[in-house]
């Protein structure tokens, strides 16, 4: 008995401090894969039933809705195209290059962690699909989290609302930077170390800033729901609601962030880059932010577009 306890304690120590055991975990995970697959069967069946037993009228209605959504999306895409070209022009003028570029893969959430003290989900893509630790996970509305553990055919994702997850964000309106950490109740985000004088208001959209090289830049993360200035506290209290449908969505996207390796551009722009990060970047309206009404009229370029 004592031997088993010692062995377990040693395992736990090594596994929590070092990563020697990742290979072992990875091998054992092959055994676990069919169990995951089986556990997912009930929800698969219910989805299938939903698909099969859907009324003709519902389908027509849904079709109609989707058509309208597509129309809106296409309109916004048109705006986006002109904005992108304008953006690129400005970038060229400043001799700066787009810092990150991503590859996208779709995945499905197949399980939720049953540990009440953390917010993790399991997705159906793993090592053999090319998932790596640190890949960003998004849904249609915003950033959800990042991959923290890769198994052969599945991976664990730590959600942005987990208190141990920090996301580098930026206020879309003025470029104010902060770190958004999951709140204690694990349903929202809280900004850390925000000075009392920072210009952050309720309703502000927080987008990923791309600093830290983990998350692609410019994806919506959260919307500020509460700002409190307490004279007794050194920092302001800012709470935000995640944009991603954390508890509802099943389909997610995996994005890997790669720095563009172009030494020529790098060399040329190094001094400029350093300088550039000092000024607020108004011209960097992220693609997703265009769809948000509160941000759409902020930049003069866009205002001009709307007028046309």
């Amino acid at each position, binding site marked *: 008995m004592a031997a088993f306890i010692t062995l377990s304690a040693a395992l736990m120590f090594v596994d929590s401090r070092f990563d020697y055991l990742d290979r072992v975990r990875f091998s054992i995970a092959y*055994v676990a894969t069919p169990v995951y697959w089986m556990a997912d069967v009930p929800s698969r069946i219910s989805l299938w039933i939903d698909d099969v037993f859907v009324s003709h009228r519902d389908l027509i209605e849904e079709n109609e809705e989707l058509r309208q959504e597509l129309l809106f999306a296409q309109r916004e895409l048109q705006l986006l195209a002109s904005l992108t070209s304008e953006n690129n022009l400005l970038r060229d003028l400043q001799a700066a290059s787009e810092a990150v570029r991503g590859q996208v893969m779709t995945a499905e959430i197949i399980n939720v962690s049953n540990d009440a003290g953390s917010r993790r989900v399991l997705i159906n893509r793993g090592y053999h699909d090319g998932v790596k630790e640190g890949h960003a996970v998004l849904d249609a509305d915003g950033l959800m989290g990042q991959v923290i553990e890769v198994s052969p055919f599945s991976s664990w994702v730590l959600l942005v609302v987990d208190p141990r997850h920090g996301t580098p964000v930026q206020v879309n309106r003025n470029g104010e930077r902060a770190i958004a950490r999951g709140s204690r109740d694990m349903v929202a985000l809280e900004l850390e170390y925000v000075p009392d004088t920072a210009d952050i208001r309720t309703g502000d959209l927080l987008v990923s800033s791309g600093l830290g090289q983990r998350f692609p830049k410019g994806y919506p993360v959260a919307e500020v729901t509460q700002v409190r200035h307490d004279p007794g506290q050194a920092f302001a209290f800012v709470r935000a609601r995640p944009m991603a449908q954390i508890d509802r969505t099943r389909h997610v996207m995996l994005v890997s962030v790669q720095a563009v390796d172009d030494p020529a551009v790098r060399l040329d722009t190094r001094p400029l880059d350093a300088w550039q990060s000092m000024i607020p970047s108004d011209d960097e309206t992220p693609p997703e932010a265009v769809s948000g009404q509160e941000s759409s009229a902020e930049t003069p370029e866009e205002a001009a577009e709307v007028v046309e």
Partner: protein
Amino acid sequence: MDDRSSGTWVIVLSLLLAYLLAIVPFPEWALHYRPQWVALVLIYWAMALPYRVGIGTAWVAGLLLDVMEGSVLGLNAMSLAIVVYITLSLHQRLRMFSFLQQSALVLALVGLNMLLVYWVRVGIGQSDSRSLLFLLGAVSSAFIWPLMFVSLRHLRRAFEVH
């Protein structure tokens, strides 16, 4: 020898089923009520066939559960080994107990299991829960125990697992 190894697949299958139930997605409100299926199945087999299912089995089963839950390797292995150790030392008495008494002991055993897991998780910073609501899982385990006991006993007799 042949007689002894008969029906190993029944034990393996019951454990597999327990894993399935342990990770099958639960609605949010029922998260705390999830019984500890793997612990329950191990307790039953350790009680019924102490010479076949012992600490070693529990340890390996726990290791697999660790990988499935994505928790630190060795965590469930340790807590389940301890639970089975206690069960083994009490198995003679446990067989004589009424359902109510058995359930009470199961409540204590599963509660211990969950507390051990919780302590280690908080200790190494993998979890950040401050409420002890998760112990409701031990209560639901105790409630489901008689059902579990009867069905596993039925299975054991039907397939003559000795």
